[in-house]
C-alpha cells in the first residue's frame, strides 16, 4: 500500500484541503494526518485540478519518431498537467486498423506517464475514400471511441454520413477536421487583408464554417455524435450555437493558440506560427473566447503537433504546419480565459479535463477530486509569469509559438494513477 498526501491545495481554486491517495484512489478529502511512511506533497498555495485530458494530440509514433514518440509526447503531457491524451491517427502506418491502435495504446502503457487513448482513422489511410475498420477498432483492446482523419477533412458528404451512422450504435464520435479542400487550394494563412499584403494564399473562414454547417446537419439527420476539431472562426461559432440550440449532438474544441495568437504573428514569415487551421483575426479570437466561456465550444484541445527544426526553418510555403502545445496549454488558458474573467478554475477543469474525457468516453479521468475517484491531479501555482524557453519543453520538438514569450502560472506537480509524474516541475 502506497500513500500520498497532498497538503493544503485549493481544490478548483476553492477551499484548501488535504487529499489522501492510497493505491491510486482518492480516499480522503479534508484534513489528513498522514502516516509516517506516507509521501507528503506540500501544496500550500497551489490549486488542485483534475489531471488534464487532451482530446487532440499528435504523438507521431509510429512513423515520425524524429518529431515525437509516445514516450517523449507523454513527458510533454505530464509537464503540462495532463493525465490523459488522445493520440491522433495520422501516423505511418495510419491508425486505421486494430493492430496500430493497440500498438499505440501499448506504447502508452509502457511509457506510463499519462494514459494514451488512440484515435482511429475514419477512412483507410486518411484517403477519404473507404471507411476504416471502425467497429473492430471500437471492440479492440484499445477501446476506440473517437475517430478522426485529422489533417484531412472527410469532405465526401456521403462518406461522412456513413461514418456518423456507423459509429452511432457504439457511441463513437467523428472528430472532423473541417476544411473544404476546394476552398483552400494553395492556402498559407488566414484569408484577410494581411494575406493580400503578405502575398500568401488565403485560407478563408468559410472553408471551415461551410463544412461545419454541412456536418451538423448530417449529425442531426443521423442522430450521431459529431465533434469539431480546432474551431478557428467566428462564423463556425455561429453555426455551432445554432446547432446546439436545435439540440444537435455536436461538441467542439478550440486550441490554446487560437485563443491568444492572431494572424499578425505571420508578418515576419516565422514558420513557428504556421498552423492549420491558421491563426485568425482578433475578432475571431474574441468570438472563440466568448464561445468557450458560454459553452458553445466545449473544450480546449492542444493539437500538439511536433515537427523537427528543419521542417520549420524554411520559407513559409515550404514549412510544416503545426505547433507543440501540451506544456503551455494551461498557462495560455489562464491568461486568455481566467485572467480575463471569462472562466473560473472550475470552468478550466470542465473544459480541460471533465468534458474532454466525457466526449471521448474515457472513464476514470477528468472527474471531481472526491473520495473514490482515480487519483489524477494537476497541482498548479497560478502566481507569477515565466518566459518560455526550450527548457520548458519536454517532447522531442521545440516548435512552440510561445518561446520567448512570458506566460502566467506553472504546473508544479502532476499525479497520474496516484503516482507523481511531475515533481516540482521535473518530469519523472
Amino acid at each position: 500500500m502506497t500513500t500520498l498526501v497532498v497538503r493544503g491545495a485549493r481544490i478548483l481554486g476553492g477551499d484548501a484541503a488535504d487529499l489522501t491517495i492510497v493505491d491510486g484512489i482518492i480516499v480522503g478529502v479534508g484534513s489528513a494526518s498522514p502516516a509516517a511512511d506516507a509521501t507528503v506533497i506540500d501544496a500550500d498555495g497551489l490549486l488542485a485540478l483534475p489531471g488534464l485530458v487532451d482530446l487532440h494530440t499528435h504523438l507521431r509514433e509510429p512513423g515520425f519518431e524524429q518529431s515525437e514518440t509516445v514516450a517523449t509526447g507523454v513527458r510533454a503531457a505530464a509537464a503540462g498537467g495532463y493525465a490523459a491524451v488522445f493520440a491522433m491517427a495520422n501516423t505511418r502506418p495510419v491508425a486505421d486498423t486494430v493492430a496500430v491502435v493497440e500498438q499505440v495504446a501499448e506504447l502508452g502503457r509502457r511509457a506510463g506517464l499519462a494514459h494514451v487513448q488512440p484515435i482511429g482513422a475514419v477512412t483507410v489511410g486518411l484517403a477519404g475514400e473507404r471507411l476504416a475498420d471502425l467497429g473492430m477498432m471500437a471492440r479492440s483492446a484499445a477501446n476506440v471511441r473517437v475517430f478522426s482523419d485529422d489533417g484531412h477533412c472527410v469532405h465526401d458528404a456521403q462518406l461522412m454520413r456513413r461514418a456518423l451512422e456507423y459509429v452511432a450504435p457504439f457511441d463513437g464520435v467523428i472528430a472532423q477536421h473541417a476544411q473544404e479542400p476546394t476552398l483552400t487550394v494553395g492556402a498559407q494563412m488566414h484569408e484577410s487583408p494581411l494575406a493580400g499584403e503578405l502575398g500568401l494564399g488565403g485560407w478563408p473562414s468559410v472553408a471551415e464554417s461551410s463544412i461545419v454547417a454541412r456536418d451538423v446537419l448530417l449529425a442531426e439527420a443521423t442522430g450521431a455524435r459529431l465533434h469539431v476539431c480546432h474551431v478557428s472562426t467566428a462564423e463556425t461559432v455561429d453555426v455551432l450555437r445554432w446547432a446546439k440550440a436545435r439540440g444537435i449532438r455536436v461538441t467542439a474544441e478550440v486550441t490554446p493558440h487560437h485563443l491568444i495568437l492572431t494572424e499578425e504573428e505571420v508578418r515576419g514569415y516565422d514558420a513557428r506560427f504556421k498552423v492549420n487551421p491558421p491563426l485568425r483575426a482578433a475578432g475571431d479570437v474574441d468570438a472563440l473566447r466568448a464561445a468557450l466561456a458560454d459553452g458553445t465550444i466545449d473544450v480546449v484541445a492542444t493539437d500538439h503537433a511536433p515537427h523537427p527544426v528543419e521542417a520549420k526553418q524554411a520559407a513559409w510555403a515550404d514549412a510544416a504546419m503545426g505547433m507543440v502545445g501540451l506544456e503551455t496549454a494551461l498557462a495560455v488558458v489562464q491568461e486568455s480565459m481566467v485572467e480575463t474573467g471569462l472562466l473560473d478554475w472550475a470552468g478550466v477543469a470542465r473544459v480541460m479535463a471533465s468534458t474532454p474525457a466525457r466526449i471521448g468516453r474515457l472513464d476514470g479521468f477528468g472527474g471531481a477530486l472526491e473520495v473514490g475517484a482515480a487519483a489524477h491531479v494537476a497541482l498548479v501555482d497560478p502566481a507569477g509569469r515565466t518566459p518560455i524557453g526550450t527548457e520548458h519543453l519536454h517532447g522531442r520538438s521545440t516548435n512552440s509559438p510561445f518561446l520567448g514569450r512570458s506566460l502566467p502560472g506553472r504546473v508544479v506537480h502532476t499525479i497520474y494513477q496516484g503516482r507523481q509524474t511531475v515533481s516540482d516541475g521535473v518530469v519523472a
Partner: protein
Amino acid sequence: MRHLLTAALTRDEAIELLDIAEDMDQIHERDQKKLPALRGRTVVNLFFEDSTRTRSSFEIAGKWLSADVINVSGKGSSVSKGEDLRDTVTTISAMGVDGIVMRHGASGAPNVVASWIPQIVVNAGDGTHEHPTQALLDAFALRRRIHGDASRGKGLDGVRVAIAGDVLHSRVARSNALLLPALGAEVTIVGPPSMLPPGIGTWQAAHTTDFDEVVDSRPDALMMLRVQLERQTGTFVPSAGEYIGGWSLTPERFARLGGETLVMHPGPMNRGLEISSVAADAAASLVLEQVRAGVSVRMAVLYRLLAGRTDS
C-alpha cells in the same frame, strides 16, 4: 536601410535611392562603363526561379560597379527544394560574400534568409509578395519621363497611375502599390474581381473592376501586369477571350487613352493578351526605359547597401 526586402520605404528613403540612380544612370552615356565603387565586393545572384531580365539587370549593375558577381541558379540543382534553402544560403554566406540578391517562389523567403545570415539581402522577387527593385525602376522611369533632368529630389506628387490586371498574383503590383503612394502618386488598382487581393480596400489606392472606366479617365500612366492565363483560366477568369474583352489594353482602348498616358509593363509581355503591340510599341510606351532604369536603380541599391560597409 540594411536590406532591401520591401518597397515599403519612406518618401525620403525612396527619393534618396532614385537620386543615386540618377547619378548611376549617366553611365549609360559613357564608353567606359565601370565605376570602382564596389571593387573587392562580391555579390551572389541567387535565383530559385527562372529570370532573364532581372538577373541580367542585377548582374550588369554589379559589374558596372566593379563588384564580382556570381550567378547561382536554384532551378534543377540540389537547391530546388525548400528544405535546402537554409543550407544553400548559409553555405554561400560562409564563402565570405558581401551580399545576396535573391529570387524565390515563396513569399517571404528573403525575409527569413535575412534573419539567418549576416550579409545584406536584396529581394529580387518573392512569390506573390514583393519585387521592390521593379517598383523603384518603375518610379524612376516615370519620374524621368515627367521631370527629365530636373528629376532629382522630386517625388511623383499628383501623378495618377493605374495598375491593371492580375493584382492578386503580382509582386510587381504589391510593391508599386506601396512605393508609388509614398512618393505622392494617386494609384488606382483595376482587374477582374477574382484577381483583386483580399483587403484591397485597405490599400493606399482606389480600386475598381471596370477597366474601361479607368481608360476613359486617362491616367498619367497605365501599368499593365503580366497575366498567366495558362494557370488561371477556368478558375480565376473564364477564358482568354473574357480577359481580353474586359482588361486588355487593346488597340481600341489604347486609342481612347488619347496619346498622353504613359504605358508601362514590367515584362515579359504577353502581346495580344494583356497588351496589344500597338500600345507596347507606341511613343507613349515606357517599356524600354523601364528596362534601362532597372540597371540604374539596381546599381543604386547595391551601392546604397554595400558601399562603405565594413561589417559584413
